[in-house]
């Protein structure tokens, strides 16, 4: 199964292994599976080094679309080209997709029960708390820089308070923020 290329190892990861490896990742995590992808790729199967994973991850986060799906596309293509991407992303999504639909169907059958409705509402409230915590954690490293704080506040106000469309918010904020990053890097160099 190894490829005749001069770039070192990655050889020997088959379509089946990609499918199964990412399937395991898909069913492992709740509210995001990126940490499990790292564990599978780096620690368990040694398909890539820590450094390579960090590079794949930062590219995945930089590109639009669901991050973990981007990871599966990049890793799959690296070992088996387009078919590898399909095997990895299908493996990743298949089980969670079926499980979540089974849960939804189950829920719609029992949602006349007050206990089920109340439990779901409470889960939703707690899950919201997890997202708030995630946002605050991500905000912490940015607090030292004034322009980054301003961008965070503007983004929050546009979407949460003014309920502006995301497209217009991004069209204004993203270039502005990138320009600020460029400018602050330029200032540092001088």
């Amino acid at each position: 199964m190894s490829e005749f290329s001069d770039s070192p190892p990655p050889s020997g990861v088959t379509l089946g292994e990609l499918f199964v490896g990412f399937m395991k990742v898909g069913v492992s995590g709740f509210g995001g599976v990126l940490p499990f992808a790292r564990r599978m790729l780096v620690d368990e199967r040694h398909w890539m080094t820590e450094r390579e994973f960090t590079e794949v991850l930062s590219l995945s986060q930089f590109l639009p679309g669901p991050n973990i799906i981007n990871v599966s596309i990049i890793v799959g293509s690296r070992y088996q080209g387009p078919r590898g991407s399909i095997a990895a992303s299908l493996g990743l999504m298949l089980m969670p997709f079926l499980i979540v639909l089974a849960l939804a169907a189950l829920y719609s059958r029992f949602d006349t029960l007050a206990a089920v409705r109340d439990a779901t509402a409470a889960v939703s409230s707690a899950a919201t708390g997890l997202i708030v915590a995630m946002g605050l954690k991500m905000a912490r490293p940015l607090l030292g820089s004034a322009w980054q704080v301003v961008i965070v506040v503007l983004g929050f106000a546009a979407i949460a308070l003014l309920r502006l469309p995301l497209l217009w918010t991004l069209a204004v904020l993203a270039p502005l923020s990138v320009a600020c990053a460029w400018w602050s890097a330029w200032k540092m160099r001088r």
Partner: protein
Amino acid sequence: MVERVEDEAMIPPVLIELAQQFGALSFLAIGGVNTLIPEIHRRVVDVEHWLTDVDFAQAFAISQASPGPNMLIVSVIGWKVYGFLGALVATLALCLPTSLFTYAISHVWNRFRDAPLRIAIQRGLAPVTVGLVLATGYVLARTTDETLIAYAFTAVTAALALATRIHPLWFLVAAGGLGAMGAT
């Protein structure tokens, strides 16, 4: 799972709309799907009236209580709109366009790895993403929390998640248990 529906005359309009709405959204997901939730809510509840606030909160809860990527909320919304086909179309619409894009870009990426503009873009997008994730928390709280006790669930979970290293799943399990016993 990647079959396309070709025959135009056979496709119910709502499926086409699902594909359009979520297909357009996928390219706006710059910091992962969590940044998209307010926009999904705006389109699905406020603009298209496919779901009520309560439906939306349920879809969110179900997707969080299920293992897997957090984009599954889109699958549940698709399911609520048009059953299994709706779920399939919504999920593919959110994944397929950006996956093709990622596939293409990842092959030329290494050439730009150290370009200053790339670094500026990456650094510049970070605070935008943070603002959007915080907005997601706010919009979800407004959508899902109907009572003061529900707000307390959100606040306590956020505080404990920040202060401790408890696995996130336990918060959902505990909340579900308390909710079922009528604590809210």
